């Protein structure tokens, strides 16, 4: 027997980590992400100015604008960076040599996802840090902000899973539009319930039901208003929302892995 037969590929986690770190490095060395981050920071700063226009509500407005900025710019990152990093790998054919290595396709998907999550963690941390700093300087309370930021991250993780899924088979424009559409309709799932009540028995109602159940209920993950207005969440709400978000993301990722497993690269 020769020594070659003893050669073992990397531990599956090592390959995922290597691909994830490389993805993160690509984003960090790209200007687009900084552009998004700078805009977000400007908006958070401007929220201070907006708050001056209203008397007695400064704290609320800063929190409201700040959290919205984190959410919206986070989604922009998830959509654009998420779609482009996967697409580039296929379009520029770096995936040819990557997959010629002892790397399984699901490891590629998992690695890309891990790298993108790392990018989002960094973005959300920077933006939240900025918001907290402004609140501290003004002597406002910070309660609710860390939890709201965490739930925004969970929402972004879910949106990113969709970005990966769509990039696994669609061109980048379609993938970006699709991801954005999931984000928007995901916040409007309640409206399908309302719509259903107004429709006659039939196809329309069924469609509403399907959309209501198939789309992620992003409103469920949104605890911004509690953070801003100081309302309390029901017991166990956070945990179940956390499980809902991560379970959904995992399911979407699994589908992305299956699509990647079956496709050709040419």
């Amino acid at each position: 027997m020769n020594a070659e037969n003893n050669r073992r590929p990397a531990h599956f986690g090592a390959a995922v980590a290597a691909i994830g770190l490389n993805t993160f490095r690509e984003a960090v060395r790209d200007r687009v992400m900084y552009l998004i981050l700078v805009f977000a920071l400007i908006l958070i700063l401007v929220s201070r100015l907006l708050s001056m226009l209203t008397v007695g509500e400064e704290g609320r407005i800063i929190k409201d604008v700040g959290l919205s900025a984190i959410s919206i710019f986070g989604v922009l990152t998830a959509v654009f960076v998420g779609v482009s990093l996967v697409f580039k790998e296929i379009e520029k054919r770096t995936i040819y040599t990557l997959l010629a290595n002892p790397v399984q396709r699901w490891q590629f998907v998992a690695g890309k996802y891990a790298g993108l999550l790392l990018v989002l963690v960094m973005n959300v941390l920077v933006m939240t840090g900025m918001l907290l700093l402004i609140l501290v300087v003004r002597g406002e309370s910070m309660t609710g902000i860390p939890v709201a930021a965490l739930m925004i991250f969970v929402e972004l993780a879910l949106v990113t899973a969709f970005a990966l899924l769509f990039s696994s088979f669609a061109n980048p424009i379609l993938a970006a539009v699709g991801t954005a559409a999931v984000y928007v309709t995901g916040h409007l799932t309640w409206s399908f319930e309302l719509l259903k009540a107004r429709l006659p028995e039939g196809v329309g109602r069924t469609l509403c039901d399907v959309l209501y159940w198939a789309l992620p209920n992003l409103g469920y993950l949104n605890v911004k208003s509690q953070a801003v207005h100081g309302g309390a969440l029901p017991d166990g709400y956070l945990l179940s929302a956390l499980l809902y978000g991560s379970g959904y993301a995992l399911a979407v990722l699994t589908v992305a892995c299956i699509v990647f497993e079956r496709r050709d690269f040419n």
Partner: protein
Amino acid sequence: MAESAVIEISGLVKSFKGHLGLGRKVAVSGLDLSVGRGEIFGLLGPNGAGKTTTLKAMIGLLRPDAGSVRLFGRPPSDVSARARIGFLPENPYFYDYLTAPEFLDFYGRLHGFGRAERRRRVEATLERVGLDAGRSQALRKFSKGMVQRLGLAQAILHDPDLVILDEPMSGLDPIGRREVRDLILELREAGKTVFFSSHILQDAELICDRVGIVVEGRLRHLGVLDQMVRSKPRWFEVAVRGQVPSPWDREVASASGEKVMVKVPDVAELGRLLAAVAESPAEVVSVWPRRESLEDLFMKEVARER
């Protein structure tokens, strides 16, 4: 244990959706091939013959419509088979935001090498492919030749038993081509198997043990080069400056300036021509024995297809 073939392709068929999604374009139709350990095999054919498609199916980037590929007796989807191969794609491109050492280090991780092992291999491989100089540059500043060298580097970083190269010499200057040839020969010296594709025949003629000629997705010719190409000269071309003595002045094949090209069929005739020229005021510039080259064979196969 008997060593099975390194590459075993049987009945490989692959088609793509046709233009505008109409019909199907068959790129490879029923290819059978087996390559043994330590061979240098050249898959040759004109552009669009199906070489790249075959190579991609070999490493599992494309799923065949029918047939199968085995590398070391395993399907290419098996990571333990892929751990033993190195692959250079056609016109490679790598992450332009990395430097060459960063890129190779990344691939070293995918092979499960530890930090010290990666550093050692990256250094040795960069030196081997002649990329020492460009080590701190981002890859976006690399020239075509440097990218090709880096492509070779990533293909041999992990000391694979089988190296698969798609058009490894395309886009290189003569020195670069020479270096790639030398590298391929070195790999064979080390007991590796090399499988490469090319549409340029001279590349293959010098180094291949065996070639396959593929035209329109079918393997037309498969064999040992010496047997495929007759080694006895088939005719001689003699370049003469000045007036060619009769009766050879009727055999002039082409003329450029005061130089004319005369075709003679065999050695005896060649001797008589040379003697006659020596007697005359004209002079012999060159004598070129013409063998049937791989190129001639290749042209015949392509012509047969039309």
